[in-house]
């Protein structure tokens, strides 16, 4: 019988070897001395797509399919810079995009530049329903 992803949880205790920061550090490197000696930087405070996908597997094995899907979307967003992240959120709010086409263009960008098909699909769904429900009217 293969191991269930549930056996890996919590990763920090049961599978810490699977956790690496974007800067390549492991959990054992998170010490006060490492901080004092500058061996750990702001980039190491970020979570990686690999870890988020492991957490998605764990959530799915725990019977939480929608939470798993959220972690998979999050994994895609780790590559999206802060400015673009906030700009895309803003664009999804009512009335920000003047037409569905703006959203579809953003979806395309997400797919092409950030390899984020799940996020792209979410944005396209928003474009379709926004058109149907007239959400592209200016609010301010």
């Amino acid at each position, binding site marked *: 019988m293969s191991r269930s992803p549930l056996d890996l*949880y919590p990763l920090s205790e049961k599978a810490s070897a699977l956790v690496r920061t974007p800067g390549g550090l492991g959990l054992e490197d*998170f010490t006060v001395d490492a901080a004092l000696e500058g061996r750990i930087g702001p980039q190491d405070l970020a979570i990686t797509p690999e870890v988020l996908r492991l957490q998605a597997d764990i959530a799915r094995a725990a019977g939480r399919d*929608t939470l798993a899907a959220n972690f998979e979307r999050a994994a895609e967003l780790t590559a999206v810079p*802060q400015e673009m992240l*906030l700009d895309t959120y803003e664009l999804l709010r009512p009335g920000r995009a003047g037409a569905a086409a703006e959203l579809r263009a953003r979806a395309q960008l997400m797919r092409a530049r950030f390899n984020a098909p799940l*996020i792209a699909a979410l944005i396209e769904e928003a474009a379709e329903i926004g058109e149907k429900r007239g959400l592209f009217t200016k609010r301010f």
Partner: protein
Amino acid sequence: MAADPTPRWKRVEEWDLRPLRLDSFSEENPEHGFAVFHSPWDPAPGLVLGSGGEIVEMDGRKAADFDILDAFIAAHHLDVAVAPEAMALDSTLVARMLVDVNVPREELERLARGMTPAKLAEVVGRLSMLEATFAYSKMRQRHSPGNQAHVTNAKDDPLQLAADSAIAVGLGFDEIETTMRVAGNAWANALACTVGAAAGRGSTLFQCSIEEAEELKIGLAGLATYAETVSVYGSERSFVDGDDTPWSKTFLTAAYASRGIKARCTSGAGSELLMGFHEKCSVLYLEARCLCLQRGMGVQGTQNGGVDGAPLTASMPGGVRELMAENLIAVWLGLECASGNDTRTSESEVRIGAKITPYLLAGSDLITSGFGSIRAYDNSFNPSLFNAEEMEDYLVLQRDFQADGGLAPVGESAALALRRQAVTALADVLEELGLADTEAGMIESVIHASGSNETETFSPLRTLQISQDIAARGLTALDVVRALARRGHRDMAGNVMAMLRQRVSGDYLQTSAILRDGRVVSAVNDPNRYSGPGTGYQMDEDRWARVKAVRGTISRNHILAGEGNHQAPAGAAQFYPIGEAGPGRDPHEVVIGISPAFGERLHRTTAGHAVTDVLDALTKGILEGGALPRVVRIRHTADTSFLGLTAARLAGSGFGIGIQAKGTAIIHQKDRLPHMNLELFSNAPLVSLDQYRAMGRNAGRMTWGELPEPIIVTNDGQALGARFHPRVALLYAIETEMTDPAATPEEMFFASAERNA
């Protein structure tokens, strides 16, 4: 002049003055959104699937007419593989399954994934408050309950935030949430709470509640670990007025996770009503839509149970029952639930205590989604259901019900030590990072203050400057770690580091996750598996020992130690035995029978009088009544009636007074039945020395055949049992322990203070 109005019943005038009368009570009016469990405009539950399994109609609405909520719920919440089975089940049957200990939580969660909002609302509507509470305790996600604190103050003072965060963590809060009076202070708030929360045992989840973009930035800097500002609403127009759509909120939820930040949604009954777009639906149905939406979004949990709309919902008939019902839907859908109780829903302390009780009994992932751990006036979210003022009341409720409400008492000296550690560390960090110099007087003032009215601290402008500098310089939690370590706060630096380590593993993103002693505890590794008595969460011995240790408990040792401290002052009345007591012959003699411990091991009555003063008052009164007092020690009994009867049988007049050390006194007559006394002072804590003197006088006059006016000890309604009974029981045990069934009464020489001088 107007005619005199009809005289009122004074009782009602008294009621008018009670705090309850400040509350508003609204009438049901579904057309205008005032409906709790059901409105005639709520759709009937229903689901029609097409031949390909696509949703054709849901809760009475055709797919072509779906609004944004319907569309999202149909696409992301409903599991069409389960739906036909789940929707076909009779709602009463499902309600019974919710309270059946033999139906596992997982099976009910499976069915919920196939139920529409109207179906979920219909099912929970068939449960009474008691049943919904029980179902909640069975369905909630994490095994061990938890709690969340608000930590804010009216000055946005970072020093006080640090001190109060340390206290919140010390009390056991699993999450702390701050917000600001001035938005620009967000960074100073976040840094201060991060440092304060690292004091003591450290490790708690922390959020800084502000606009999303700023909250993400603060989280990215490692100065916050969770967010619960992802608000959703149950009607399309309130959603759009709230400036979002289900898709924008889904994106935001994923954005938080992508930065390693735990997120939960916020929704609750009454919000659509407050926003003016209720669509004539019941608040429960609208909230059921919110919750299905949240499951569809893939957020791990929710903050619901009215929240800001709780006072409005609680104003309606059955409103408080509705709040529990919507919390139940949340956990039934597999969501972590921070179950509201974060808004003062009443001015009546009775209603406040009653509101929290079911949650305390059932347990909850986070019993309150913000307990005001600070003074109510310092709460920048507005006063919570419970605030620092009522903290000890809450701790005692935990002890009363033997229920873990997530907190445990912290002693005063431990609390001061935590405050000192936190404030000193923050002052050091601010100095080390070149953000501010703190004066020693400020530190002392904040450590000892209860609230911001009492602090001397940074000026508002200075605080704003600190906050702007943190943001402008891009300081992160790593700078905090280094500053703490360089200034000798190595343990606190380690605690902050441990939080950063957790973020990288993503473990606390899972459902109902919190950190306890540096380890993640969630619904994944600590699931609720309640299946009847003998299962489910129970406090272990160590936990219970800490929870029950409220301030000011008493024991036999305390009583005896207190009595030992009481020495009769020089020149006070004295009495000592002078041999066996025989029957008296004087027809006007009144015997005072004192109990075994009276003036022996016990020296004070429950009213606080020295027993010698009481004896003095009685003897003076007897003399005033024209009779002759004699004092006799009775050892074969400590019971007031028998003390009195024994004394009466020894007295030449046949009248006697019996008195216990705690001050309970009686007048008795020799031929009466033991419990048919002539006068009794049963509420000893209320009896004055003058009243003892009057009792003596009455006994004296009885020897002349008079029927004097009985002495009335008035009671204005104090809870004497609550105030005195533990002490009374302990005192009386000391009396009974000193009895000797074979002992005969002893004659006592009694010299009053005057005679003794």
